[in-house]
């Protein structure tokens, strides 16, 4: 019998993570693309860290940080009554960090591919940074914005190690689809694990195909220009 709860929870986690990452990622990518501060290379490295770091390492340190045994976790619990360990909000925080490069990097690259003279033209036409960002830059990097959203969404759907470390396996709270697959395998329910896996495989394939279609169309548009 299908249990749709892990699907729904995974979808909810991915949507919330993608929405927050979009709001945070656009200004961060803009800063990384145009800032002349030397410190930006450190920030770039921090953003990219989850790509190379084993998810269990990130999950382990988040677990330590959020644990009520430690100062940060205790302060959150005592003063704000927030507990991130083994909870959905904890999963969201972990996913934000884990999927951040997949949102930020395509958008940053989109900004960097635009000719610098577009900004210069907008500034000399009397427009400030915000107007230039909203009316000139963002509309011309739609493909990068969409790629960032899709990749961040898909990456959050596929995460396992971080979720297991920070969230554990609590039904309807932290038991996302990848954890459900692991759980079914552990319980020798291979048929059920197979069904979850096929669904995840098909979904991931579809997402990546969409990203490549978007990029292909965008490249063609640039070639025409």
């Amino acid at each position, binding site marked *: 019998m299908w249990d749709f709860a892990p699907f729904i929870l995974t979808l909810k986690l991915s949507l919330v993570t993608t929405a927050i990452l979009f709001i945070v990622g656009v200004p961060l990518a803009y800063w990384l693309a145009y800032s002349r501060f030397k410190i930006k290379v450190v920030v770039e490295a921090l953003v990219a860290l989850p790509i190379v770091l084993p998810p269990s390492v990130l999950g382990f340190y988040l677990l330590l940080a959020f644990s009520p045994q430690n100062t940060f976790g205790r302060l959150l619990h005592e003063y704000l009554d927030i507990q991130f360990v083994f909870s959905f909000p904890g999963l969201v925080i972990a996913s934000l960090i884990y999927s951040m490069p997949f949102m930020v990097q395509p958008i940053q690259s989109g900004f960097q591919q635009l000719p610098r003279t577009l900004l210069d033209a907008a500034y000399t036409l009397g427009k400030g940074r915000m107007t230039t960002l909203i009316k000139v830059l963002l509309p*011309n990097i739609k493909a990068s914005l969409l790629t960032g959203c899709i990749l961040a969404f898909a990456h959050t759907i596929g995460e396992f190690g971080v979720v297991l470390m920070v969230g554990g396996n609590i039904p309807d709270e932290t038991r996302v689809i990848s954890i459900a697959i692991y759980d079914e395998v552990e319980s020798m329910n291979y048929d059920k694990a197979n069904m979850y896996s096929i669904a995840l495989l098909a979904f991931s394939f579809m997402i990546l195909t969409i990203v490549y279609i978007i990029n292909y169309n965008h490249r063609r548009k640039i070639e025409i220009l």
Partner: protein
Amino acid sequence: MMKINLTHTLIGADGPLHLNIDVDIHDGELVSLYGPTGSGKSSILRMIAGLMKPDDGTIEVDRAMWYSKSNRLFTKPQYRHVGIVFQDYSLFPNMTVRENLTFALPQGEPTRIVDELLDITELKNLQHKKPHLLSGGQKQRIALTRALVRKPRVLLLDEPLSALDSEMRAKLQDYILKFHAEFKLKTILVSHDLPEIMKLSNRVLVLEGGRIIKDCPPRALIA
């Protein structure tokens, strides 16, 4: 009257270049900057437009100080009343021709000037087209028109016609002369093309090694 006194060190492929410029440009003058690639011509335009901060000096236009290192004054490009046209047109690809022009209008300003300019430049039939559907000459005509929407005091042209064929060039040169006279501009043109300099400008500044080595009428260049 525009008074430019700038020093700036540029780092190029051939090492550092020390720019040292001291020049006055009078109302109605169309001045060409002429010199080899890498002699700092485009950087001078960028500094006048406020897109680049000089190391030292002053820029004064019609008695308004735009830049003064000693007074720690730097007017942002948004407030400089400068129109600039780049070689690569820099039209906003997401906007139609008309939207590119209205973008330049200050908020709440009537669009009458846009309609007038569209008429003068014979662009009315293209106003609802996106830039990628237009020819190079049409794009540069729009870029030139857009630079004039805010009625600038200074027009800066950074090799605006170098990517166009000779027929389109001649047509655009006529537009530049027309606008320069009609809007009573102080225009600075960066160009490598001597016939173009002859046709358009009434004064040439020859740059070499970051300095003006000759300040003369265009005819003196071939004399």
